[in-house]
């Protein structure tokens, strides 16, 4: 069953007077594909930023699994708490090979001295091979990541996020710039990975949201406007007014 894994309470992000996120209450449940939509400037990306530590919350609490407070942790410490983030633009390491990108990303002790001593284990090798097959890049594993096509780079980055075995995955517009075929493949991948974790996705493409969302949150001016299934969202008058209204009518 799904249960609350992440809870934001009265979170405020204030950029010199501009409240990108304004006393937001927000929960994320496990085993669900959770989309965040909303007009530009609604605070969607900032929501992901504040969860993963890229932006510090001015006020409020972010609690993981009902016990761990995240707002005081460093970015890399938050990662080790089980939260991984994929950014909007593919930010893989161009000069490393596909395999090396995954090697650096995978879950392991990442402090200085364990990294100096790091050696391959059989388990790590088989996990990476499995992942390479999943994203269809096994044959390209020794290519520099910079030589991949745009869609492949996106998958590689999703794979890098998955290699960290997170409980919560944050994706920022994962299908931007992808072809129809690539979108479908990405959607399937997201459904597959959401089986035993929570996936929180910021997305603009409504067809994509409709197809894959378990739950949709609509944000407006730094606050949660509405939350529910896509059908509920589409029929809600408030949402239509601020966001869908102009488009649907």
């Amino acid at each position, binding site marked *: 069953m799904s249960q609350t894994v992440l809870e934001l309470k009265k979170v405020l992000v204030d950029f010199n007077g501009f409240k990108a996120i304004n006393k937001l209450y927000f929960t994320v449940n496990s085993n669900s594909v959770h989309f965040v939509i909303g007009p530009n400037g609604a605070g969607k990306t900032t929501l992901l930023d504040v969860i993963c530590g890229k932006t510090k919350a001015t006020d409020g609490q972010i609690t993981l699994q009902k016990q761990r407070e995240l707002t005081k942790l*460093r*970015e*890399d410490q938050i990662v080790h708490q089980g939260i991984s*983030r994929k950014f909007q633009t593919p*930010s893989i*390491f161009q000069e490393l090979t596909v395999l*090396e990108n995954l*090697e650096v990303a995978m879950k392991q002790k*990442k402090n200085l001295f364990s990294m*100096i001593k790091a050696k391959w284990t059989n388990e790590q090798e088989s996990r990476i091979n499995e992942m390479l097959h999943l994203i269809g890049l096994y044959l390209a594993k020794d290519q520099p990541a910079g030589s991949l096509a745009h869609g492949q780079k996106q998958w590689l980055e999703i794979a890098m996020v998955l290699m960290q075995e997170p409980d919560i995955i944050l994706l920022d517009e994962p299908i931007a710039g992808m072809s129809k075929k690539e979108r479908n493949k990405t959607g399937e991948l997201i459904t597959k990975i959401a089986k035993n974790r929570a996936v929180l996705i910021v997305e603009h493409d409504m067809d994509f949201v409709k197809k894959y969302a378990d739950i949709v949150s609509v944000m407006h001016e730094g606050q949660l406007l509405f939350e529910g299934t896509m059908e509920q969202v589409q029929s809600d008058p408030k949402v239509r007014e601020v966001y869908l209204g102009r488009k649907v009518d």
Partner: protein
Amino acid sequence: MQNTIYQKLLSNKVIFSLIFLILLVAPMLLSDFRLNLLGKFLAFAILAIGLDLLWGGYTGGVLSLGHGIYFGLGAYCMAMYLKLEATGGAIPDFMAWSGMSELPLIWIPFQYPILAILLGVIIPAVVAFFLGYLTFRNRISGVYFTILSQALVIVVVTLFIGSQNLTGGTSGLTNFETLFGFHINASSTQTAFYWITVFILGAVFFFSRMLVKGRFGKVLIGIRDGENRMRFLGYNPSAYKTFIYTLSAAIAGLAGMLFVLQVGIISPTMIGIIPSIEMVLWVALGGGRGTLIGPIIGAVFVNTAKTGFSESYPEYWTYFLGILFVLVVVFLPNGLTGLFEKWNERRKNKNVSNSIRVEKSVS
């Protein structure tokens, strides 16, 4: 044709064997004077490896224009011991001139050779650790770090010149006689120093290569290409940068000690801003970012050119050196090893086009 850094390392095996062979036969071919010069250049090459770790290929973006100081700290540690061995335990002449009668506290550890040698590595490392820790933890990087490293040079050099009674001021430390009872200027001692330098160069090279060949090196490349991205993969880049910065400072200290043994003097002008910038030039001119061989070639080449020009054209040599720098920057943006790589690539491409031709003729 895209090569990863590891393939580059592999292709550099040839260069490496060649260098090793040259260093091996050099004592048979060179006069004592030339061998001593080569030994000095090799001490510089050791430092250049450390700089390459920091700036060239790994961690990247961390350009230190202050490694003269770490070199200097190592050199002064060695020199202080040599000075005390020369005076036979009495206080050095320059201290007596400034009216001192007892050995100052900070000189006392340098009566003991092993301690002096250890401190020659530890002191630079500790200074670098603190500077690195404070700057990298506060996410100061790029040009701001570079400026800070320059400021360090000014501070330390001013301090060294100002404390005449402790450091010998502008004239530095010189007039050494013996090391462990061996005459320091004897040709056999100098040849021994040469071999020690070659050995340490090899050791530092292989140690550094081992360090960056594994997963650790890939993490460093990750930090170079996307420091923030690494944070969101669960790494703390400041720790890695501080480590490499500290390591490169320790290597610089080692180089400084070997320098003093072979040159017989250390003074503030040898560790100041100009030498600090020159050190970066060795790495840049050697090229081959991250190969760790490029900087060795660069250090030896630049210093050989410098010596050659200054001997043959005592009046114009600085112009020649300047022209050389301009030429390399304009025509060989990847440095001297870039030349080798270009040639290697052209040869590979030729092979490829040959094989294509063969395939065509078969079909």
